[in-house]
């Protein structure tokens, strides 16, 4: 019973204290700059940056000759850009409350469709790209219809969809790699500008646009409200069905873009290329959601997390670690990220005690809610 009350009341820890009656309400002031700066730089807010520094130091000492070269970092930036692009696309549906497990196969579909159009149908490059986008958007519409029209739980709907898409990919490609995409198409992902490949700039452009919409516009606010509580959002006049449609289409188009970049990079349409993007993308979004915005999925947190994870993976690879290290690393990062999010949400007696201990004798600073009056 005590355990329950603990759980149920942890959220309300702040309101328990409340403000004394005689204090005029408008006396409240934002916390002083020093406190805010300390909060902004706290491990809790930007843990990924601290992890990055740690990884950097470890690998710089361990394998300085390979890790500390411009070439390594240049290829890291380029190679990770597509994974990161997938993660950016995934942020949107997750913010709207749709956990899109089909994201990996959506990438795979984009990769195979563009290859098939170019190699088998001899479509022109712009037409092939446009049709691939249409295809990605169509997948988004289907997922939306399954969730809002057929009222299937998003988790199940996208899980089922991912299997269907795998079948479609195998059908289009005959489970064979599609070759001969043409040299022109390959330049899209391999050409360089200021030493970095095009996908890095594409990622940056997409991330900026999605960030602007999510954080700076009423539309983005509606996406987060829908993800937070669809019922309350609906009662505030938000057409949650439209918001979900917008988010699944955005995700479909961005993952199709990522897919066609993969095909361009490999100069091959590979039917097995999509699924491996699932886990890194989820790890980046969830780890990213613990950054900056206190538990809310967000673009820059995701981009940061994707690159930090990539640095870890790259470092282990350069150090000659076995081939299963990336999987282990990404899996642990996902678990750690979600675990940390729980830690942030419900401070239990134990974590509260630890925090008290850590604060020690020095005058306690107000930490998140509990004491902030």
């Amino acid at each position: 019973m005590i355990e329950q009350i603990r759980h149920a009341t942890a959220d309300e820890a702040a309101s328990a204290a409340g403000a004394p009656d005689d204090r005029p309400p408008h006396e409240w002031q934002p916390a002083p700059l020093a406190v805010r700066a300390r909060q902004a730089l706290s491990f809790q807010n930007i843990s990924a940056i601290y992890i990055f520094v740690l990884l950097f130091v470890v690998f710089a000492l361990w394998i300085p000759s390979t890790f500390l070269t411009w070439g390594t970092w240049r290829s890291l930036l380029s190679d990770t850009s597509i994974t990161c692009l997938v993660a950016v696309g995934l942020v949107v549906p997750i913010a709207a409350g749709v956990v899109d497990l089909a994201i990996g196969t959506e990438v795979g579909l984009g990769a195979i469709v563009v290859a098939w159009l170019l190699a088998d149908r001899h479509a022109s490059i712009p037409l092939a790209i446009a049709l691939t986008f249409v295809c990605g958007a169509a997948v988004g519409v289907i997922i939306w219809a399954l969730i809002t029209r057929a009222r299937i739980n998003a988790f199940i709907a996208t899980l089922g969809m991912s299997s269907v898409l795998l079948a479609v990919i195998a059908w289009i490609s005959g489970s064979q790699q599609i070759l001969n995409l043409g040299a022109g198409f390959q330049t899209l992902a391999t050409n360089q500008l200021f030493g970095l490949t095009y996908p890095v700039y594409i990622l940056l452009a997409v991330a900026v646009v999605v960030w602007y919409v999510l954080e700076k516009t009423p539309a983005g606010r509606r996406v987060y409200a829908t993800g937070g509580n669809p019922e309350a959002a609906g009662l505030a006049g938000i057409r949650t069905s439209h918001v979900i449609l917008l988010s699944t289409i955005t995700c479909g188009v961005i993952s199709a873009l990522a897919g066609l970049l993969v095909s361009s990079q490999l100069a091959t349409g590979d039917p097995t290329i999509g699924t491996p993007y699932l886990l890194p993308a989820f790890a980046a979004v969830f780890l990213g959601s613990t950054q900056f915005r206190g538990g809310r999925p967000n673009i820059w947190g995701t981009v940061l997390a994707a690159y930090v994870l990539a640095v870890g993976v790259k470092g282990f690879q350069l150090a000659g670690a076995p081939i299963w290290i990336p999987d282990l690393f990404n899996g642990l990062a996902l678990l750690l990220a979600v675990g940390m999010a729980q830690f942030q949400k419900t401070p239990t007696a134990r974590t509260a005690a630890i925090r008290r201990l850590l604060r020690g004798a020095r005058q306690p600073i107000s930490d998140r809610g509990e004491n902030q009056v």
Partner: protein
Amino acid sequence: MSAPSTGTLLSASGLSKTFPGLKALDNVGLQVSSGEIVAVVGHNGSGKSTLVKILAGVYEPDPGAQVEIRDASGQVLQGQAARSRLHFIHQDLGLVETLNAVENLGIGREHGWRSLLPARAAAERRRAEQLIARFGARFDVLAPISRLSPAERAILAIARALDGWDGPDNVLVLDEPTTAFRESEVKRLFEAIRRVAKSGAGIVFISHRLDEVLGLADRVVALRDGRIVADEPAGQLNHDQIVELIAGHAIAEVEHSAQTAGDPVLEVSGLRGGTIRDLDLSLRAGEILGVSGVLGSGREELSGLLFGAIRRDGGTVTLSRRPLSPGDMSAAIEGGMGFVPADRRRMGAVIDMNVRENLTLPFMRPLRRRFGRLDGHAERAETHRWTRTVGLRPPDPERPLRLLSGGNQQKVVLAKWLRTEPRVLLLDEPSQGVDVGAKATIYELIVGAREAGTGVLICSSETKELVSLCDRVLVLQQGRLACELPRDSLSEERLVREELGLGINNGRPSVGQANSKESEID
């Protein structure tokens, strides 16, 4: 009375809790005797939840605190041993919705390795039935919890807490168990609580429903600003005195000023849907219209139907001379309608978002700038103004709603609609789960909206609220309009009788007390 001893069971003294910059609890003591029901009342922020959390061991009290339990043999238990004699029932009860009563009762029990053996179904069922029968309840113990009424669930939670008590020397702490209850169910729960007390246990009951407290408790402990301001037998206090004690000043009844109502802003004819069958009503600008009725009369569905949250089956709703299509909430808001639902946490607000985001959610157009940008500066300024207007505590616009008290959450929900300057404001149980202080603010805001020319519709089970606020009240019975009471013939007693269909001349009113008003149709 079978109470074996009447000595002090729980004795807590010197309980203090200091948060940086705030003394949440200041040298509070609490004694509970065997068989006694002690009510703890207070504002949000008065320290009552802090008190519960110290007793439960969630918070560590400041040094000098002492919590003791005297067990049946006269031995004094402290620390962990004392804590094992304290049982808590929180508002959410901690039951698993998808399991049935038998399974829920079994969850907490120690089985050891035997938990792998098949459960003995028949014996378990009989045991469960016996357990709940001790509290005067009878229901299907094999039905999933989600199908039980709130009172039945609460009784089950009590039964589970008491299962395995080896003596009367235990204390049951109920923390706001009745927030989501209808009044008839409150009675059933109280019956069960009285039985627990009779068996010799001590009860600590925490609530902000003052009528309840007076009906149940032997002793009332009132907290204000972390201190005890009264500790008196319940018989020596009345409703107004308690309000005065916990608010620290007498809260004036809402001053009702007659105001000439304007043109009709909302006209409804032949409305059907849910339990409502063929309802007509008309609401005018600057009018407060109350809707009353027992549970199941359609009162709790009306505002949702008008707003479009529940799809109506027939009838027309005309908002400022424009017909509203069914189920289109965006159009209703565009047309100047606002809706404060009864279930705040689930429907009223996005509680993981902060005050600012919730406030501007229904109406962001005036904050839109070029390229669809949301003007953060203007938004913050506007939020700051509204937190002042509604007296939000703490007035921190960036605080997630989750971390605000019920009353302050409701202020935000109300503010977000007042900000849209609605023509019609629909309120469903506007003061449910709200403390006395916030309630006064909410009433002021409602009256303020009326003065600004808004037509207000209040659906409420609290007759006192309807009588003090409304210009006229519609009484519903079984989905139809039973009668309409104008302001000058409005009284609590009259309302209660009309709700029950007793009319005005059917003998003496036997149900004056608000607590028992729904018992007769149950």
